[in-house]
């Protein structure tokens, strides 16, 4: 199974990991790969921790990524990097959005938001950190944060040379193609 690549997108319900995964998997299918993708629906989406997973290669069996298998993990929220770390290869790459969404136990003051995440992970493997929320806001729509992160992920995966403008346009709402393409490029340039 060495030829299979595993990409993990983690975040908080409502952050748009599913759309980002959809664009990425559309591109991988057109490139001729066998692709499987898993996503979470239902209760877990209500502000809980969510993941979407993409596996691609010549032939893929399991639709979900096992422990220590992810080549790249993109974290839409900083603390989620810790929760899903077990799924990343010891030398896997991390792309982290420097963005905090405090969870319920943090909001009520029962637990602190953990500190030193970036420093700790940077000492262990290749980590790219940037503020996708700021970039999205500067572009005029905070909701494009997911596409900014997709741009960074594509860069980290080393697959920039694909017809991304087309794959983005195919999957986003009509009238928002330009904005999302801009967001994607800004994400690629950010790391």
């Amino acid at each position, binding site marked *: 199974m060495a030829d299979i690549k595993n990409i993990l997108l983690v975040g908080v319900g409502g952050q748009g990991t599913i759309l980002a995964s959809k664009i990425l998997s559309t591109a991988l299918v057109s490139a001729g790969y066998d692709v499987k993708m898993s996503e979470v629906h239902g209760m877990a989406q209500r502000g809980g921790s969510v993941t979407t997973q993409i596996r691609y290669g010549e032939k893929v069996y399991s639709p979900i990524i*096992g422990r220590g298998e992810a080549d790249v993990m993109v974290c839409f929220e900083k603390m989620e990097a810790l929760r899903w770390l077990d799924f990343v290869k010891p030398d896997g790459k991390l792309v982290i959005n420097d963005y905090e969404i405090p969870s319920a136990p943090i909001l009520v003051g029962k637990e602190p938001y953990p500190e030193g995440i970036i420093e700790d992970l940077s000492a262990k493997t290749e980590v790219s950190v940037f503020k996708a929320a700021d970039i999205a806001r500067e572009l005029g729509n905070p909701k494009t944060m997911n596409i900014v992160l997709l741009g960074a992920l594509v860069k980290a995966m080393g697959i920039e040379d694909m017809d991304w403008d087309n794959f983005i346009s195919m999957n986003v709402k009509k009238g928002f193609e330009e904005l999302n393409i801009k967001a994607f490029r800004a994400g690629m340039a950010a790391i």
Partner: protein
Amino acid sequence: MKLLMTGNEAAARGAYEAGVVFASAYPGTPSTEILETLAGQHRDKIYSEWAPNEKVAVEAAIGAAIAGGRALACMKHVGVNVAADPLMTFGYTGTTAGFVLVSADDPGMHSSQNEQDNRYYAKFAKIPMLEPSNSQEAKDFMPIAYELSEKWNTPVFFRMTTRVCHSKSIVEWGERTEAEHIKYVKDIKRYVATPAHAKPMREKVEERMKLMTEFANNTDLNKPEYNGREIGVISAGVAYQYAREVFGEEASYLKLGFTHPMPIETIRAFAEKVDKLYVVEELEPYMEEQIRAAGIDCIGKSVIPNMGELDTDRVRLGVYGKENPSLKSDIKAADRPPTLCAGCPHRGFFYSLSRRKNVMVTGDIGCYTLGNAEPLFAIDTTICMGASISSGHGASKVFERSEPEMKVVSVIGDSTFFHSGVTSLMDIAYNGGSSVAVILDNRITGMTGHQQNPGSGYTLMGDPAPEVDIPALCMAMGIKKENIHIVNPNILAENDAALDAALAAKEPSVIITKWPCVLKKPSREDRERFDLSKKQCKVDPEACVNCGTCIGTGCPALFARDGKVEIDSGSCTGCGVCQQVCPFGAIEKAGE
């Protein structure tokens, strides 16, 4: 055409290609998108509808199939419990045109109250079962299921699981083959299940079992793949994908797509050709039990867990005792449980409810189940759809006898009330109960992703529909008009007044909270009836003393940064609940 599709989209495509003309379902994760896909993409060929519950969905589909059109019913695993009554007897009568029931199980309980293994239903009802292991099979097995249904005059059980339903893989499409309408012929002995008719039907069920078993042992749906002979693996569904990856190219496989009745002779022949036989299945030892009962030795649940969702890690650990190395950190992430959304209309009501003492709150299935969580802790029990009102009734009868200071409030959503809360409320009215039933009407089926229901004014296919008049329905069942309170749950004073009156009443009371789900795309009627203009709450830092009372509402838009309370403008919808609880008047609402 080749496309990346979820198993649910592919199953819908399969139903379309099979010539299905009627589909009914009640939404439930992970099954919901099957009917949504039918209504969205195949509406010209297939009539599809949301039924009030799964029993109704199955019965409607039974009627359609007996009348001669291919019919589909879809539901989550626990929905089959609700629909088990018609399913069991339909297994006796059989059908005219093909009938398929999709059971979408949820191993690991991603969005369910239990992880029951519904394969036992196929065995229980003595009907054939198909288990796709990816999206292509979800599509391809569907026309086969309809052929088998018509060949043997039986409902077919189509068992999917979360990772088959919600994972995407590449599907090659086929074309729709119109299934000829089978002319309905009145046949009382065949379709009227009286004791006199059911006895011969029962014998036919056993004859069918023999035919099905013969088929199971000869179909390509159960096909061995011989590689090395040292290890042989029997598996089905998504578990096959995990096993195939862990055992690799060296092992031989017997992948089962038709799993009831079990192809015991095929299994015996396979077992004889391999040295060591593993059975890899998710949840219960459904296959292993039957394989062992046939006197075939195998390794199964002694190494593969029977609880939780399976994956490659758990198979690898069980079989080889090995785990992949991975990145690690000593820093721990705080928990991130799902929560009621910012602006959720349930929050206001649960906040009011959480202030009450000596109240037991019986809950139900839906987003509002999250009212049980910190910091509101406003739900005591959750069992199944509809149980809030009926179990609340039973609890209040016992409290009346032994703990008279205790009161009972039952909370149930609009869709869940229509699903199975109506008969529960009838029980209270009929039997002189005194508990309080609260119908949290957010005008949509929320948790599963906004499906229309009999109260929302629209059908699955988007046509306007009459809305159930909930107060009139309650009155028709015997709840007195003066005991029905309709409130805006975002206004705490309204909640409190309604709770005061209802808890003091000696007769059964109903509180109906009305406000659309904050994530719902409002209908025309919603916009006419509710002020949904964008508002925003803000903390006045001069007046705020950071007492944290507002944080106690559990709203995710509120947080304390460096000891100072702030409201996240991106997520706040201006519901105003925090403003009402603030003892210092330090929160103001912009947009008013």
